[in-house]
């Protein structure tokens, strides 16, 4: 199972001293978190992507390339890559390039982005969000899998005799996750291609997360990629730790109370009940996190949001240290203890995808195409019998 951290890259004033980090300081801090993650034995660092203040994370592959140069094992990922407003041609190039730089330590999480005004800056319309995610991702799969692409869709200039360079490392495209909080179409998309499904989890109730993951698992099986409990699931989590629960709450409360997204709203205690937020001892975080598998099933990736709401760099580094040294080692053991043998522990990696060989379904643009056609034909036949 993979554990790591994910960041939205917000520049937020520290409410305890009124200090706002510069963009340079924020970017440097994120780099330090990634390096710390590798140092303390975490597996994944994922960066968000935004193109508006108060965020700094507009250029993920630049940042991930810089981190790749300073790490050896850390898997570099995104949370999320905007499949709606980015040109899929540029995503294909940038992330293949990052694969080459990092020795294949790359996967991506596709997301739509949720801020209406950002879309027109890139010539798009948020009302086309789902269609853009569908069309652009399909093109991205082709660009990574077909040596020469001829293509015409609704949203970008047609391609004639186009070859994306560099080709994916070892001819093997990176594994892809699809992140969505509410849109069932995106869970369906992940299931159709046999990709991973990531639920943010931290801004919603567990009942909702459970339903979204269940839907994805059911459709993953429907499209013939394996049993529902073998589908690739990732979850977000949010924690703040200290040696006692009281101390953790004392330190974290001002950041919580003033946080973007949920600050000035529910109490820390209420929010901890409504969402997976855990503010307490490492033991409490372990217990809560292990409980996630009780409602989503045994899963493959757990990412924690540690750096937001203006938390100072030194404090975040301490938190990552505790996560890596006190929490995750126990989680690894306990999650494996409960996992049935037929459920994969890790999601596909570059090494496992290369090992599976060039004839593996991963290399098809639409691995479930034949299965879907078969199912459609069967449905047609059934409806005729009924009629």
């Amino acid at each position: 199972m993979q554990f790591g951290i994910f960041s939205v890259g917000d520049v937020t004033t520290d409410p305890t001293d009124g200090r706002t980090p510069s963009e340079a300081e924020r970017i440097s801090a994120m780099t330090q978190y990634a390096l710390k993650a590798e140092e303390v034995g975490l597996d994944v660092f994922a960066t968000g992507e935004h193109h508006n203040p108060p965020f700094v994370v507009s250029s993920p592959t630049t940042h991930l390339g810089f981190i790749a140069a300073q790490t050896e094992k850390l898997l570099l990922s995104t949370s999320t890559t905007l499949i709606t407003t980015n040109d899929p041609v540029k995503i294909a190039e940038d992330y293949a390039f990052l694969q080459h730089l990092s020795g294949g330590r790359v996967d991506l999480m596709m997301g739509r982005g949720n801020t209406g005004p950002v879309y027109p800056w890139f010539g798009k319309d948020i009302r086309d969000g789902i269609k853009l995610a569908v069309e652009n991702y399909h093109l991205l799969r082709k660009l990574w899998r077909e040596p020469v692409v001829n293509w015409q869709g609704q949203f970008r200039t047609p391609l004639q005799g186009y070859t994306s360079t560099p080709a994916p490392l070892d001819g093997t495209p990176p594994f892809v996750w699809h992140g969505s909080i509410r849109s069932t179409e995106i869970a369906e998309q992940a299931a159709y291609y046999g990709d991973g499904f990531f639920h943010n989890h931290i801004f919603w109730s567990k009942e909702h997360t459970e339903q979204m993951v269940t839907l994805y698992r059911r459709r993953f099986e429907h499209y013939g990629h394996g049993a529902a409990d073998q589908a690739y699931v990732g979850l977000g989590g949010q924690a703040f730790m200290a040696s006692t629960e009281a101390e953790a709450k004392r330190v974290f409360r001002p950041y919580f109370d003033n946080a973007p997204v949920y600050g000035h709203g529910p109490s820390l205690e209420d929010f901890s009940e409504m969402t997976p937020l855990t503010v307490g001892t490492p033991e409490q975080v372990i217990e809560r996190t292990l409980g996630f598998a009780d409602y989503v099933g045994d899963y493959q990736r757990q990412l924690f949001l540690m750096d937001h709401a203006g938390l100072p760099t030194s404090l975040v580094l301490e938190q990552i240290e505790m996560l890596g040294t006190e929490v995750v080692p126990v989680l690894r053991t306990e999650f494996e203890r409960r996992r049935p043998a037929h459920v994969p522990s890790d999601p596909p990696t570059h090494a496992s995808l290369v090992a599976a060989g060039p004839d593996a379904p991963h290399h098809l643009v639409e691995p479930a195409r034949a299965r879907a056609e078969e199912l459609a034909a069967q449905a047609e036949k059934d409806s005729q019998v009924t009629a």
Partner: protein
Amino acid sequence: MSRQIVVVTAGLTVPSSTRLLADQLAETTTAQVTARGETVDIEFIELREVAGELATFMVTGGIPTPRLTELREQVAAADGLIVVTPVFNGSYSGLFKMFFDALDKDSLAGTPVLIAAAAGSARHSLVLDHALRPLFAYLRAVVVPTGIFAATEDFGSHGLSDRITRAAAELATLVLSQGGYGVGGFAPDLAARPRRTSGTQVEADVTPFGDLLRGHSGTD
């Protein structure tokens, strides 16, 4: 089968004239349904009791609390609604609007709704037609023709109780005629029935990906 009518009331004090009006509407509606040989269960939602949860729902981008989820499901399953607000600054109260803002936009489609407002002065009486009626028109509810406006001087007057009886009769008729969608012996056209949803559950019916991809695969 007993019909379910939900009374949503936004009074702030205990007791409140808003709740008093709501009680009269509920009793009279019950009498009107019973007079037609049917039964009805009336359930009250006092918005005051969930004011904090509504605020949480708003500022967290819609993270539901268990109680709010229950109420949203209750409203989306109701056969009819009676909604009562105090008049603040010439309109419904903020609390009243917050509740309806927290509903799925398809919660009330095709649902009979009796609108009512309580105010200190008759000068606010247009609040029904200028604020409440458009709100429920947007939600595609079926608003009964008679709205009930009660100013302080109306309580205890015959005029008010007559109007309440008329509105309750209209609501009872609409609630009992629900679910037909067939005309005189023809099979009901279920497809024409408004589709309501509380928005609290993930839709289990998903559009097959082949349909989503159609026209977007770059080859067709």
